């Protein structure tokens, strides 16, 4: 396998942007600057980045409560993201959504979701629309190991399988659902094993290896575009950060996590891979990283300065004017 340098740079940019963005968010939250809750994607960057590198702006994704990484990987702009997390008027959702509800419809990012398992059926619907319109678009539904126990998982995958819809179900198995370890709530070793029950293909990949994710997604997405129906992909990873920023993490030791992260950091994995293979140079990577750090800082600066929504924004966006009403 070999990749174009441009492609690799873009991939690195995605992953580093997620990492830097999330580190900054964690810092800001602990500093008391951010309202709401935030859930960080640090340590899982390879998954969203690997998947979304196969998608165009026409394709759809649905996301989760841990959605910043999906947004960035799908191509969202970090300025309105940051502004949204600050609750500012200039945010993607004009400050109405916040961290758990960022969407960017212009790039097919159909939204983070505060309801665990709320995204499956939306992705199925988007895929159904694509199939009806014959557009060759696909939809990717990101979900966690915890979310895999919601009934929506079952209804959505069954429907997608029965109708051969172009949707990829992408399980980010980070071993934890909040404070609850994966194997205490699920009797099966791999979520991917569930594909058998729907007659669809599945794949288990190392979620900390962006190339592995990219290649698996490529096959599944190609298949979906060609009318071959859904695939269930399970990306094995580990939740490096607390469930949310501020989580006391009484349920595991810091050492355990630190060791895991040092041994298997998707970003480090990428860097050592591309350097070892001579695909990119250290200097390039550093340059990218520096630039992104600046971008993130700039996003914070402007978000800080941006105004909060005006009071009269409270009632807007609840209903849109409809054609029929205008005519009535």
């Amino acid at each position, binding site marked *: 396998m070999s990749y174009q340098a441009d492609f690799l740079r873009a991939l690195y940019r995605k992953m580093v942007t997620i990492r830097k963005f999330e580190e900054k968010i964690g810092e800001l939250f602990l500093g008391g600057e951010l309202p709401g809750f935030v859930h960080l994607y640090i340590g899982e960057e390879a998954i969203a980045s690997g998947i979304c590198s196969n998608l165009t702006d026409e394709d*759809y994704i*649905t996301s989760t409560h841990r959605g910043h990484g999906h947004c960035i990987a799908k191509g969202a702009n970090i300025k309105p993201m940051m502004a949204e997390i600050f609750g500012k008027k200039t*945010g*993607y*959702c*004009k*400050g*109405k*959504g916040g961290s758990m*509800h960022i*969407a*960017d*419809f*212009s790039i097919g990012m*159909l*939204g983070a*979701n*505060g*309801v665990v398992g*709320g995204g*499956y*059926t*939306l*992705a*199925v*619907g*988007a*895929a*159904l*629309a*694509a199939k*009806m*319109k014959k557009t060759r*678009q696909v*939809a990717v539904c990101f979900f966690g190991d915890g979310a895999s126990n919601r*009934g*929506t998982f079952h*209804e*959505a995958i*069954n*429907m997608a399988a*029965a109708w051969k819809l172009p949707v990829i179900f992408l399980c980010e198995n980070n071993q934890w659902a909040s404070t609850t370890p994966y194997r205490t709530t699920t009797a099966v070793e791999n979520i991917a094993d569930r594909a058998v029950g729907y007659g669809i293909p599945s794949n288990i990949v190392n979620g900390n290896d962006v190339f592995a994710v990219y290649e698996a997604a490529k096959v599944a997405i190609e298949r979906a575009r060609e009318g071959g129906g859904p695939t269930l992909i399970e990306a094995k990873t580990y939740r490096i950060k607390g469930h949310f920023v501020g989580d006391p993490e009484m349920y595991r030791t810091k050492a355990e996590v630190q060791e895991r992260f040092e041994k298997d950091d998707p970003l480090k994995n990428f860097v050592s891979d591309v350097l070892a293979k001579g695909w990119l140079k250290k200097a390039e990577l550093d340059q990218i990283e520096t630039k992104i750090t600046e971008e993130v800082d700039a996003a914070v600066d402007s978000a800080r300065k941006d105004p909060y929504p005006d009071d009269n924004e409270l009632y*807007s*966006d*609840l*209903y*849109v*004017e*409809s*054609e*029929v*009403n205008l*005519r*009535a």
Partner: protein
Amino acid sequence: MREITFSEATLEAMSEEMQRDEKVFVMGEDIARQGGIFGQFKGLPQKFGVERVIDTPISETAIVGAGIGAALAGMRPVVDMHFADFVGVCMDEVLNQMAKICYMFGGQCTMPLVMRAPDGIIRSAAAQHSQSLEAFFLHIPGLKVVIPSNTADAKGLLKAAIREDNPVLYFEHKALFPLKGPVPEGEFCIPIGKANIAKEGKDVTIISYSLMMHRALEAADKLAGQGISAEVIDLRTISPIDKETIFSSVAKTKRLVIVHEAVKTGGVGAEISALVAEEMIDYLDAPIKRLGAPFVPIPFSPSLERLVKINADQIVSAVEEICK
């Protein structure tokens, strides 16, 4: 005017809208092969193909969720709930997704989705197949809720609902499907959010909707015989409620009775009564009466089921009580 059934009226609405806009499609259980339990989808697959009239798995959560997703991706889905009683199965999708997405995402999208839900009591269908649950949805910002009482409204409101860019719940009473009534030729929409004064009157205002409108009109006839002139308002839309029409009627009649088949406690009648008690109390010459089902699940036995349904005589008595 020509007469067709309520069911046929909804079919015309579907046909015309599916013809007009190829983004409109419908999905639900047993709607293609069977044509719907009440014949309300009959013939549509023949006209539009099973790609646009889709039999689904028994997965109400996915049906509604996929409707939402398809709406976000540019389609105009109509989803069928089979029985309104099953809306609990997909309540999260209605409450937390359908109703909130547009607002939560700062108006980035529209949600042109219609959920059709046959409701109400028929023939001892018992506790899990007889409910009228519209009141829940009054309390959920972001939804619109319509509920026709007759054939013409069935058509006009369904067409309006399908053309809305906001999510609309369309409740259709099971006992109405076979009823015949006049429907104008050609296309027409009935505006969402406007109540209809079904009968003008001056002594008392009776507000109702859906099947109970028929009881209300019966009662109004009987009352006319006693010299009481009742104004009968058909809400047509439950959310948003047409306060203006209600208030001007109450300003005129000074007496108000609200009638619905749903459980009285916490029903739509409560909201209307409260609106009037808040903004129009000085106009009132009598207590505001509500008629609705007693506070029990709907029992199976015909001898008990009969007791939870409101009849015209009960409405007459309620009016008499506040008109003496």
